[in-house]
């Protein structure tokens, strides 16, 4: 038994997801199976409406599939409910969105420690870990600035600090560079891959940017709700 390899971090089998009913029914995913291992960086590539965002939502346990199973470390996610599900999501995942989703009126530090606040971490501990995460991204001097006062690249770095603050095992990055110019985008990409290398955080990038996808260990091409191609980098 001991020789058996550990189950993949995330594993989905024959995933279907449809929205609506009858003639308005729309099948976003039509049978997707995928294993994601610890420390991997994987790009989910596809056009708008291909189902890549739906797949990310299902992987992040934000939504339940119509059929098929999502396993987190071998455990069926359908068995996770309510408080337990929320806790798992809070401790396991970090999110980086294209649109940042920073609360404009709050300070950068307050934005960064939001996951810790939700987890119920004490104030002093929150501040310590929030500042550490900001330091990791060379943002400690901006801690008390209002989130609106940041440039696009700084905002995205604040968002990455927020994703990082709770020591997640997986960071979901949905078009992380979509709103940035190419120079700033490259910096943000470097940061994400450095975290992947140095902290062993599994990186799941959803993008239609081929250059970003090319930097990942593995690329999964998705079209019309099915995986059409899967390729691994030579390195």
């Amino acid at each position, binding site marked *: 038994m001991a020789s058996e390899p550990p189950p993949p971090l995330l594993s989905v089998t024959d995933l279907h997801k449809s929205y609506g009913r009858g003639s308005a029914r729309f099948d976003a995913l039509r049978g997707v199976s995928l294993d994601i291992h610890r420390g991997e960086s994987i790009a989910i590539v596809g056009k708008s409406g291909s189902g890549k*965002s739906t797949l990310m939502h299902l992987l992040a346990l934000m939504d339940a599939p119509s059929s098929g199973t999502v396993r987190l470390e071998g455990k069926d996610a359908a068995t996770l409910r309510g408080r337990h599900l929320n806790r798992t999501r809070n401790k396991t995942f970090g999110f980086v969105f294209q649109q940042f989703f920073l*609360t404009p009126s709050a300070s950068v530090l307050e934005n960064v420690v939001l996951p810790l606040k939700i987890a119920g971490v004490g104030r002093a501990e929150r501040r310590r870990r929030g500042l550490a995460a900001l330091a990791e991204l060379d943002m400690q001097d901006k801690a008390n600035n209002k989130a609106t006062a940041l440039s696009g690249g700084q905002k995205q770095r604040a968002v990455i600090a927020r994703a990082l603050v709770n020591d997640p095992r997986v960071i979901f990055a949905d078009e992380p560079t979509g709103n940035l110019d190419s120079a700033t985008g490259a910096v943000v990409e470097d940061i994400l891959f450095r975290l992947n290398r140095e902290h062993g955080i599994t990186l799941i990038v959803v993008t239609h940017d081929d250059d970003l996808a090319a930097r990942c260990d593995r690329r999964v091409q998705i079209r019309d709700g099915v995986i059409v191609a899967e390729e691994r980098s030579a390195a």
Partner: protein
Amino acid sequence: MKTGDLVTTAAANTFRSKTRTILTVLAIFVGAFTLTLTNGLGTGINRFIDDTVSAIGSADVLTVTKTGTGAAASGEPQKYDPEAVSAANTNPGRPGATATVSALTDADISDLRALPGVAAVTPTKAVQIDYVQVDGGDRYVASASSLIGGQTPQLAAGSAPDGATDALQVAIPESLVGPLGFADAADAVGATLSIAVSDPVRTQHVISATITGVTEGAFASATALTTDPALEDALFAAQNTGVPADQLDRYASASVTLSSSTPQAVDEAKTALTDAGFTGQTVSDQLGTFKAVIDGIVLVLNAFAVIALLAASFGIVNTLLMSVQERTREIGLMKAMGMGSGRVFSLFSLEAVMLGLLGSLIGAVVAIGVGTAVSAQLGQTLFSDLPGLQLIAFDPLSILVTTVAIMAIAFLAGSLPAARGARADPVESLRYE
């Protein structure tokens, strides 16, 4: 999320959109201000009545009359009752009340003494004073009221007549101090007052008594003297000079002191009195009608305040619905990060409660300020004849109840938007394609 964080986050969120918050709080403020003020009005007037009641008589003293044979207000012909006396002579009587009661005789007094729970019975001797005078000065009309056991008159100077001695003592009302020729209230204490009464054959008898104190005029008549039992007996005897002995023991009413002043004991005594053919009333019974009217008025005013609060609660609903709408993304993000629906509901509910708290606190503080200023001003002008009246008084308990009630209304108003926020689907909220 910890409850403490939830509260501070809600408080911070309340001030995110300042103009909207201020306008909503203002709407609640109007209701809270009105409610605090009207409650204060009720508290002030009722407190004044309570103070005055303890000045007129204590809780364990009943004024007992014999239940009359006919309805005085009835226009129908009534049979002659040889025992009937006019209740206008009873004291203390309700202002403006004219009723005919049957006289109490010494036999009735004995019956009363025998009733359970009765500690003492004092027949009220109605005395009609012709005039009062000091050192041959101007003569003034006055009435007399006897000191009932346990009564604590509000005194401007000196002390109340001592009921335990045989000395003839009297306390005069403040309004008679100047007319009788005294410089001030303290000057009157120790002086001798001449009191004249007429007997049935119109012979005037003058009796001298020592002034021991000066009473503040309030609900009690402005010209009522407070006499001790010895003086009352002397006046009564003088007034009935020449009356046949078997007609002497006619009393309009009697004061019955109970052995216990608990509401239950008072109720039992009243029942016993009714069964024995008497009617017993405490001073608070007699003033109960006043209080009922005041409570009624306060209730109506409160109803208006509650209508204002209802209008304000729709403001809360509107404010929070806008807030939920604006923060859809934020709610989605928090839910994606593992915040439960219950906590999202709590967060928005707390924001509603925070609005209610702000409105009611500001309302209460401003109402206390305005109410205190207004009643101080009125106390010097319109109500200067009623010393001790603070028209608008504030009771911490009723302010606390008002605040909690407004917060509860705010919570109810906030529950609809909060439920909408809690239901939000993170996937739907975070969609931007």
